[in-house]
């Protein structure tokens, strides 16, 4: 434990000393035990551009941070300074890196830091550095904390947070935490069947556990159809369906259940653009195998998509139609 300066009370922890926003925060420039550190102002040159209008507190803290970078001081007060610096700018990756360097040099217990990281992640869930920091620490530790629970909490607030999903994938793969992961994705899809990230996670699990065996493909196709019965115009589900079918030798048009499903929807009058696009591709597949009726169907649907059901992409559908016709030597 550092010897406390005579004129200042001992700090509450070696890690931090309260918030920069606290009314009783004392700037480093006014602390007697920091008198030995010459502040290093930012050298922005004679004519700076895109100047950021820093607060006085920001300048006070960062002038000391730069000073400690220059001196290379390894100490608990240096570590505490990084807490203040990160509160002011959690996106400064060099501060995070310096903090990790200090944690290691001071041989600090990682538990406390993991808790600090959890706090920062909850406060700044879309910041790259906080997630990276935790990842490095967990790697260093060699075993996970409650990584899935942490991402679950973040995802409960923003179910599509890219950082949380990326971190979760890393933790699941690194520590083989696939157990229950398919169910997690399923739960999120129950809450929002349009959650593209959850669909992607499902693919990730299948890919890294069972692989896409014919049983798995069949199961996933059924799962998709269930989801599509709920919401037909769900691009995520249709994309997933195609992705899964790509893993099977039967292609888009070789699954009876699926063909029936699509025909059923069409007969019931459903003209969801994703359904029609799927039938175009499935029909094109059959056309390539010589099915002339399928070819006509594909051409007709391209026209319908262009004219009525997916007019945003009309030019694309007309191009598809031309390409198909050309491929099969028709007008």
């Amino acid at each position: 434990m550092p010897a406390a300066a005579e004129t200042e009370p001992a700090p509450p922890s070696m890690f931090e000393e309260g918030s920069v926003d606290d009314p009783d925060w004392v700037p480093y420039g006014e602390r007697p035990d920091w008198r030995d550190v010459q502040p290093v102002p930012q050298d922005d040159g004679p004519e700076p551009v895109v100047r950021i209008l820093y607060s006085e507190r920001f300048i006070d803290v960062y002038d000391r941070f730069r000073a400690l970078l220059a001196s290379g001081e390894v100490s608990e007060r240096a570590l505490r300074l990084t807490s203040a610096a990160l509160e002011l700018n959690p996106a400064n990756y060099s501060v995070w890196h310096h903090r990790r360097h200090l944690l290691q040099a001071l041989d600090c217990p990682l538990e406390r830091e993991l808790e600090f990281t959890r706090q920062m992640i909850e406060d700044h869930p879309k910041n790259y550095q906080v997630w990276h920091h935790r990842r490095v620490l967990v790697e260093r530790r060699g075993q996970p904390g409650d990584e899935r629970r942490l991402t679950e909490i973040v995802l409960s607030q923003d179910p599509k947070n890219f950082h949380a999903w990326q971190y979760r994938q890393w933790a699941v793969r690194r520590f083989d935490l696939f157990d229950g992961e398919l169910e997690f994705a399923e739960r999120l899809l129950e809450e929002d069947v349009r959650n593209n990230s959850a669909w992607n996670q499902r693919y990730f699990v299948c890919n890294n556990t069972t692989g896409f065996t014919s049983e798995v493909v069949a199961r996933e196709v059924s799962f998709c159809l269930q989801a599509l019965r709920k919401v037909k115009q769900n691009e995520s589900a249709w994309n997933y369906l195609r992705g899964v079918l790509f893993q099977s030798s039967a292609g888009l048009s070789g699954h009876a259940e699926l063909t029936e499903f699509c025909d059923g929807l069409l007969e019931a009058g459903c003209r969801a653009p994703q359904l029609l696009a799927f039938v175009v591709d499935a029909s094109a597949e059959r056309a390539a195998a010589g099915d002339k009726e399928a070819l006509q169907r594909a051409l007709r649907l391209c026209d319908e998509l262009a004219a009525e059901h997916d007019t945003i992409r009309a030019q694309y559908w007309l191009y598809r139609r031309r390409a198909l016709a050309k491929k099969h030597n028709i007008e």
Partner: protein
Amino acid sequence: MMEFLHKRHARYFKFCMDSIPGEYTSLDTSRMTLLFYAVSGLDLLGQLDLVQDKQSVIEWVYRQQITSELCDGDLSRAGFRGSPANSSGAPLNQWDCSHVTMTYTALATLLVLGDDLSRVDRAALLSGLRALQLPDGSSLSSLHGGESDMRFVYCAAAVSYMLDDWSGMDREKTREYVLRSMRYDHGISQGPLLESHGGSTFCAVATLALMGELDSALTEQQRDGLVFWCLSRQGLGFNGRPNKQEDSCYTFWIGASLRLLDAYQFVRTDLLREFVYSTQDPITGGLSKWPGHGADPLHTYLGISGLSLAGQEGLKPIHAALNVSSDAVEVLRRAQARWRDLPPVKAVD
């Protein structure tokens, strides 16, 4: 909003060039990108004349360069910093090193300002790039403290293309990383098995294009699938992932991807324009990610460069892979021609 507030956006960028409000402290290490948005934005708007002292801006950019002289033997840190925030002068402190996104935006900014890049320490810079590439082909952002993903692969490729020298990058590994990141829906993610996303899709497509491998790397099926994935991002404007909200920045990320894939003709530019116009802030100028959210430099620049791709009148045409005006690319070509007359530089290990 039926009008493009051309002059107001120019004023917005001019204001940014002087100063950014205090709440942008989170961008303290990325000021180079803010400078790029402002300078290149003014260029696209044909209002670069609002930058009264181009030379002093150029000086600021070069001040962020870590040259071989500063490196004192360890060229792995060479390149450009985003700002002087973490520098404590010479000799360099242990973490003072370049950041690949800042190197890209620094070079781009210099070109827009008409600088001939003669003060760029190319050999050192290429060594710096090489130090950032990982065995899986992806790239770190900087030597100390960062993640690796498609964003930095793109920046490294853009830098290599600009320097007309690929010795700082293993292109084969880069290509493999890109292909491994193509997903089941044919969109491209930041890395293998992650969710496909408009930003990473642009980074991947542009990387392949800059390497001259866009046609050879993708099968017909992959290319068709990718084109359709990109086109499916359009509702009014573009979103970045299926079932997500439309956002003005994808006007560029998705638009440029489609342009590079020779599929921009399928975009409904009338709808796109309507959306982008609605994100304009009539009071401050600038564009926000969606209507009423509040303008920021990134969305302003990407909305405008995206509109350039859509053929917006009054905007300069852009180079879709580099995201700078064709005028800036002319400056680049002249610099590259000059280098070809000089003895070659090679990345030093």
